[in-house]
């Protein structure tokens, strides 16, 4: 680290202290509170949960935390099913996104430099426009009276509308559609730096194009693929809006179950316990992501 830009002690204290303090107050502390509340029981009143500590017989307050909420989550088939189907949906949707995104990233990386920036901008632009509105747009297309069904009926292909909306298919579609840019960008970033002479070398050595792709391009783009898969999996597994708007009543996803426990059943402690299990679920892929995307400068 160079001497330049080093700040005086007081200014430095502010530069570090202000954002650090904010993060401790609004990220670390709330997460600890969620964990604490996950150990208590719901009750009627404000706040709608029992205290974690109570006045015991001695001088020290008594710790009243229990693991009941967690035991319930892991024994009740509804919650177990919700976790399993969240993982299944997020993993499959990430793989489908990969299949769609890889050819796009590859094609963008192989176009001339003049075209790359506008093509990339077109991939990123939807990310800027409202996520909610983009998910909502599909309800008008997929619903039983929607564009696809009307068109098919008009053409005489079907007599009865196809059940396209409010099922798992629509949820996959919503995730792939919403998170496609998250997959294209990291794969593009890797392919852009790829030395295409390696492919020429493979061709000179007699490898047909598909073989060169499988043995050279694909292994070299693996970091981008892994980063993309994780970038789609992490938000998808805790997704609420997509299963709520596009999924059916039976589409169980943990974000949705948590929402119901909190807003409909007013069971804040159980919602907290679900949130903690969800946190554990995203933490492993998040750590993997940090390793894959770690740049050399960060390692120093």
């Amino acid at each position: 680290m160079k001497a330049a830009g080093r700040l005086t002690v007081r200014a430095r204290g502010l530069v570090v202290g202000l954002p650090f303090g904010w993060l401790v107050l609004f990220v670390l502390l709330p997460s600890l509170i969620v964990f604490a509340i996950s150990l208590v029981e719901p009750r009627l009143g404000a706040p709608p949960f029992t205290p974690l500590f109570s006045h015991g017989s001695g001088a020290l307050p008594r710790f009243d935390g229990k693991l009941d909420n967690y035991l319930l989550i892991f024994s009740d088939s509804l919650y177990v099913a919700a976790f399993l189907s969240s993982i299944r949906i997020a993993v499959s949707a990430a793989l489908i996104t990969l299949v769609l995104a890889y050819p796009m990233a590859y094609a963008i990386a192989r176009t001339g430099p003049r075209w790359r920036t506008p093509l990339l901008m077109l991939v990123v632009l939807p990310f800027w426009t409202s996520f909610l509105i983009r998910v909502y747009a599909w309800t008008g297309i997929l619903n039983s009276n929607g564009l696809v069904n009307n068109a098919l009926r008009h053409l005489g292909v079907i007599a009865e509308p196809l059940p396209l909306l409010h099922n798992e298919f629509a949820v996959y579609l919503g995730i792939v559609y919403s998170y496609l840019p998250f997959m294209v960008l990291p794969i593009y970033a890797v392919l852009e730096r790829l030395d295409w002479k390696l492919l020429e070398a493979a061709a000179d050595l007699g490898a047909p194009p598909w073989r060169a792709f499988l043995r050279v391009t694909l292994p070299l783009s693996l970091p981008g693929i892994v980063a993309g898969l994780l970038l789609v999996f992490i938000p998808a597994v805790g997704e609420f809006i997509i299963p709520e708007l596009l999924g059916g009543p039976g589409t169980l996803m943990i974000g949705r179950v948590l929402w119901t426990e909190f807003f409909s059943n007013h069971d804040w402690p159980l919602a907290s316990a679900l949130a903690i299990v969800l946190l554990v679920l995203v933490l492993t892929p998040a750590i993997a992501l940090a390793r894959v995307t770690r740049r050399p400068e960060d390692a120093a």
Partner: protein
Amino acid sequence: MRRRSGLAITALAFGYAFLYVPIAILIVYSFNDSRLVTVWSHVSTRWYGELLHNAQIGDAFFLSLRIAAVSASASVMLGTLAALAMRRGRRFAGRSAFEVLVMMPLILPEVLTGLSLLLLFVLLGNFFGWPSERGATTITLAHITFGMAYATIVIRARLSELDPLLEEAAADLGATPVRTFWRVTLPLLMPAVLAAWLLAFTLSLDDVVIASFVTGPGASTLPIVIFSSVRLGVSPQINALATLLVCAVALIVGVATLTLARAKK
């Protein structure tokens, strides 16, 4: 070679169609006169007219705009400080904890962020009497927290590209660190600061989940109003509103990108 470029064009055409056709359909149908959204009658701007007279949506829009502007501004200030601390500061105790904490809001599921901040506000309210009620203030605080994480990433990336020699030169010429920051570092960071502000602003304007948790009675942001409406099904007024929002964002982001690209040259 020809066959490959044919494949590439197919992949791109399919990908971009997938990304843009649903939005295009939404825009087209916002000009449909029929109340039944999917049955085309004839072109009209009827729903835009009704939208203008919808007081609930109007109020929600201005509330969201205010929250987004305040939280985006605070986000870039905190994000700039965080980026400086990570890229220009000396190592300090807890630095790796700091780097992890900065990224946490990006990784945490929205339902967890929303729930955790709500619990924080409830407990703070119980112990200290503040916040006495939840609403615009608590939503703003929540939005600053995730906006700051995005702002830090955008500004830090730019800071890493800057030549430290420029700051060193300013210091050699006798500028204090604070003056160096205002006269050298910040002007060089400005494109990233603007991009970060825009990102934090649009993310705030789009948030349903976190706002739903931390809001209170009487504070319904635009996304909350849209969400409660579209949960019940497709609505022509929401189509008109969505069209306006999508076009506004596309216009602002497009102009900003072109301006920044020109400034770089």
